[in-house]
């Protein structure tokens, strides 16, 4: 189907179904139940899950296939975001030009950065990309304030030109739309105690992610993808086989930069604001973590990793002591205090701690990321006798230099 081999078609179908029914899947608990805290099916989080999924899918095309570890990919997302907001300010509130220009601008910027950084490999490459991203961040925060809005970020204003749009009514706040559909419009489906939200912006982003995912499958299975994997495996042999690796790595770099630009464009389409923090090195680090956590070099891994981290950031950080107390209120006082006391350091303001511990656990026990965890599980269910096989299958331990 779609020119894919069977297993890939199945994977793509699974992703389509998952994104299509995400409003149901992410809202498994009835609205007023104790567990409703863990519902993630509200527009903003659903949008973020798929957008950062796109970002990680793109990053994986570079890192997962060629092994080049870029520590500055957030810069492309940021540049894409700024370009997107400027389109919304200058051209139209319709998101399509914003998204397209974001991709193009991020692609151009990644071409420049990649062309220079790819003259080196290994950690030297990583530090070069990091240096470019940090410079972009620092300048955007300070000297470039007239272009980027600096600390307060860039937002559409009532007084912007928007040359393609009719003038807004007096006092109306400009909102991004797609042919009249506003990004934060939603339908709510009420079934018993459950409420499911279907959001316009989410489905636009979801369509983009499915397309991005499909494209990444095609790239993985193409001769180009094969060459990229060859770069990772043995660049010297590739050169002695008559192939110049730099155009391949550069193309991969630019493609992943464009994915980042798409993610940036979608971010501003959903929420018309761009700030410099999204270019800070921790943001670049985050996409690295997403990819490794999910499983670098696998198709679905980055999406899982992105979902995992974003869900955590948005759900666990919102649990406060008050909520904990209601959870354990059914217990006798002393016992509930004990439980609240035990869990409290790990939620709310302690969500970073939980995230750090999970990083360590995943890397220690699942070297291939969440995908490997899934394979292990599947292995247990499918065939108990060759359960050990899948553990060693997906990773190759590169010796430390």
């Amino acid at each position, binding site marked *: 189907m779609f*020119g*894919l*081999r069977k297993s890939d078609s199945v994977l793509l179908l699974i992703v389509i179904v998952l994104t299509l029914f995400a409003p149901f899947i992410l809202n498994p608990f009835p609205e007023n139940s104790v567990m409703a805290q863990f519902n993630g099916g509200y527009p903003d989080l659903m949008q973020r899950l798929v957008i950062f999924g796109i970002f990680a899918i793109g990053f994986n095309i570079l890192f997962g296939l060629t092994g080049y570890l870029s520590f500055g990919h957030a810069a492309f997302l940021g540049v894409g975001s700024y370009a997107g907001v400027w389109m919304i300010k200058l051209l139209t509130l319709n998101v399509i030009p914003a998204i397209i220009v974001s991709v193009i601008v991020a692609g151009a910027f990644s071409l420049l950065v990649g062309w220079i950084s790819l003259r080196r490999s290994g950690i030297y490459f990583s530090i070069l990309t990091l240096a470019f991203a940090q410079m972009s961040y620092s300048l955007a925060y300070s000297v470039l304030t007239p272009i980027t809005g600096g600390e307060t970020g860039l937002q559409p204003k009532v007084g912007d030109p928007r040359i393609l749009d009719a003038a807004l009514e007096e006092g109306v706040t400009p909102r991004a739309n797609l042919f009249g559909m506003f990004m934060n419009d939603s339908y709510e489906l009420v079934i018993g105690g459950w409420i499911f939200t279907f959001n316009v912006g989410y489905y636009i982003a979801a369509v983009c992610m499915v397309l991005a995912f499909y494209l990444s499958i*095609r*790239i993985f*299975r*193409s*001769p*180009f*993808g*094969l*060459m990229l*994997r*060859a770069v*990772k*495996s*043995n660049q*010297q*042999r*590739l*050169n*002695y*086989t*008559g*192939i*110049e690796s730099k*155009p*391949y790595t550069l*193309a991969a770099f630019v*493609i992943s930069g464009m994915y980042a630009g798409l993610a940036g464009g979608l971010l501003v389409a959903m929420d018309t604001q761009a700030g410099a923090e999204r270019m800070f090195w921790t943001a670049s680090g985050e996409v690295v973590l997403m990819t490794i956590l999910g499983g670098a070099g696998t198709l679905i891994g980055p999406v899982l990793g992105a979902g995992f981290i974003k869900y955590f950031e948005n759900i666990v950080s919102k649990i406060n002591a008050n909520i904990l107390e209601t959870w354990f209120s059914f217990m006798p006082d002393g016992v509930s205090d004990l439980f609240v006391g035990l869990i409290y350091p790990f939620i709310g303001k302690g969500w970073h701690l939980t995230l750090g511990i999970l990083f360590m656990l995943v890397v220690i026990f699942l070297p291939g990321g969440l995908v490997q965890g899934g394979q292990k599980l599947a292995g247990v269910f499918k065939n108990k006798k060759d359960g050990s096989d899948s553990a060693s299958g997906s990773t*190759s331990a590169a010796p430390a230099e």
Partner: protein
Amino acid sequence: MGILEVQNVNKSFGGLKALTNVNLNVEEGMIHAIIGPNGAGKSTLLNCFVGRLIPDTGAVTFDGQSLLGKKPHEINQTGVSRVFQTPEIFSDLTVLENVMIPCFAKRDGSYSLNAIKSVKNEQDILEKAEQMLVDVDMIDKRGMTASSMSRGDKRRLEMAMCLSQDPKLLLLDEPTAGMARADTNNTIALLAEIQEKRHITMVVIEHDMHVVFSLAQKISVLAQGTVIVEDLPENIKGHPKVQEAYLGGAH
């Protein structure tokens, strides 16, 4: 006129002179062996052929064009393939994929953004690669990950990768190093067969005299960075200069 001509090549590293006025003439269709004691400069010379090193002075011409200043992939595109002392293969990829990559390189040149087509639809490449694996008797291993094979199989795979490009010149750097006698004989047979069937010119660097004298049609002896003798195998055996070089006779 040989297909590969080396004229007055000099190369030094810092103060150390690795090659001094090396001259070499490899004739088309021949198996030309380069022998010499350790540190004689054999590998340095080979590296000058593939673009890994650039000679300080002198000329290296292949098939009428100079190789100097060309990058490794450009040299390969002119028809020069190299087998390494320790097999250089794509260890993370399958055996079939390993062979497909040189096929793509042969067909598409040094770069082609073939990002949307699926590998499995590239019938011509698949057929060619599979045929190659049949030729080297590895077709039953096509789905294996290359890193999981024995050293002998890796060497064989590397050779298959080079051959699938139909090179005009094949450079072999100690193709039997570290092999058991039986494997060595297999390799000798394989190389002889290749030469017979495909008439590929080969330059072999080798320590094992059994291999050298079984295969070579011409031999150059390198000692202390310079060619001391270039002659037919039968004339090399008793050559006094060669004996001196190997046995370290008094200067």
